[in-house]
């Protein structure tokens, strides 16, 4: 039986540990980028023009260049130019990759937030004002939920993309699930020339993105009680 074989057991254990890193990167990116994106979106809507243009330029550069390039630059350049050094080994790779991912995704999220905030009709704000509500009451009690409802579908798209984008960390040899699968082609723990582990990683992605899709779909459903 293949699934009980030594080969499968060894590969599965390695892939599991790789996938754990994939998950780590995924959740750290979400936890960091969701609030940072809000800060960036406020910057891009600022009434202070220099801040607005600076923020929009940064967002343009980050969204306009490949994430792979950003990861490589962020990981190698500081050490080569004697700016600072990342911690050694996997910790350093993970830290650098997380910084690149959080910043990259925050820029994407910020544009979604901006659309969400600007999409709530100004009449909602005015209706709150004439009823004597404060600006913060209006934001938290009136605008926020309408904004969340608007951004859930585009955010779902980005989050599903993030599931698969985590594999880009492989470019600086972070030992996530793709790196692990590939290692059995080159040689790892006495196995080499194995092709199936690389393709088997697809199962992890499919299951994970399936779970994420279901969860986000539920959130979207929950917000359907109003229009």
């Amino acid at each position, binding site marked *: 039986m293949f699934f009980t074989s030594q080969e499968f057991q060894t590969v599965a254990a390695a892939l599991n540990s790789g996938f754990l890193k994939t998950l780590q990167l995924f959740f750290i990116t979400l936890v960091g980028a969701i609030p940072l994106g809000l800060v960036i979106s406020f910057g891009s809507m600022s009434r202070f023009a220099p801040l607005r243009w600076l923020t929009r330029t940064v967002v343009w550069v980050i969204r306009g260049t490949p994430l792979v390039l950003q990861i490589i630059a962020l990981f190698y350049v500081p050490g080569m130019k004697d700016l600072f050094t990342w911690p050694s080994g996997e910790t350093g790779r993970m830290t650098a990759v997380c910084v690149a991912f959080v910043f990259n995704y925050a820029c994407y999220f910020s544009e979604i937030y901006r659309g969400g905030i600007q999409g709530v*009709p100004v*009449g*909602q704000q*005015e*209706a*709150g*004002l*004439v*009823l*004597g*509500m*404060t600006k913060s*009451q209006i934001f938290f*009690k*009136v605008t926020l*939920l*309408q904004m969340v*409802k608007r951004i859930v579908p585009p955010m779902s798209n980005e989050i599903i993309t993030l599931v698969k984008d985590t594999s880009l960390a492989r470019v600086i040899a972070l030992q996530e699930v793709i790196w692990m699968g590939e290692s059995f082609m080159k040689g790892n723990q006495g196995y080499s020339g194995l092709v199936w582990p690389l393709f088997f990683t697809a199962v992890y992605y499919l299951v994970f993105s399936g779970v994420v899709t279901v969860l986000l779909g539920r959130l979207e459903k929950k917000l359907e*009680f*109003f*229009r």
Partner: protein
Amino acid sequence: MVILDVQNIEKHFGATKVLEDISFSLEEGQALAIIGSSGSGKTTLLRCLNFLETPDRGRILVNGEKLFDAADPATQRESEVRKKRLHFGMVFQSFHLFPQYTALQNVTLAKELLSQERPDFKANKKVILEEIRAEGLSLLDQMGLSERAGHYPHQLSGGQQQRVAIARALAMRPDILCFDEPTSALDPELTGEVLRVIRGLAEQKTTMVIVTHEMAFARDVADQVIFMDSGVIVEQGPARAVIEHPREERTRQFLARYAGQ
């Protein structure tokens, strides 16, 4: 007794003058209709009363209290403006109900938030909130909507939504209730139910300022009428007299366009 006194209001948007030397007063318990073609400044005038726009010149007094004076920045402080707005209620052309709240919650939300500022709120929270809820229900009942209290705005017709919006404005017990073309966004068959509600309020001597294109309604329900054109008041006086026997040529031309209806 004069409740609202508007003196020499002037408002520019950039180089465009949208209101020029607007002065009028309103007696307590009376309804004032503001008529005029689109772009004549009617809506801007209402928005000035509700502090959604800041006039460049002039004063606004309610019950003799100076709420706004363009020459006195102290009357324009953000923190005080919030409280001053409560003298006025506002019903918008396109309702602006809060979509994530039920009809009842739309009516009670602002009152609940305001009651949190009462010193006895913590001690009597339950009683206070129950009072607000009961009051909200009775307002909806008055609008003929007691069956719809638990419905969300998207589940209501336009006429029902506008009646919820009227209840929401009344919940804050404003001295003066303003309507900005309350039936213009409605299908013709739904305007009647909203106009009936406003007529009912007039019979109860609610002080109102109503911007409207419904001339027959203005004539029958309003006590006073103001006709505006290009940002100025062309003619004002008792509703029936102005609409049936306008003195000014511009008023006559404007009313002639509605005569066939």
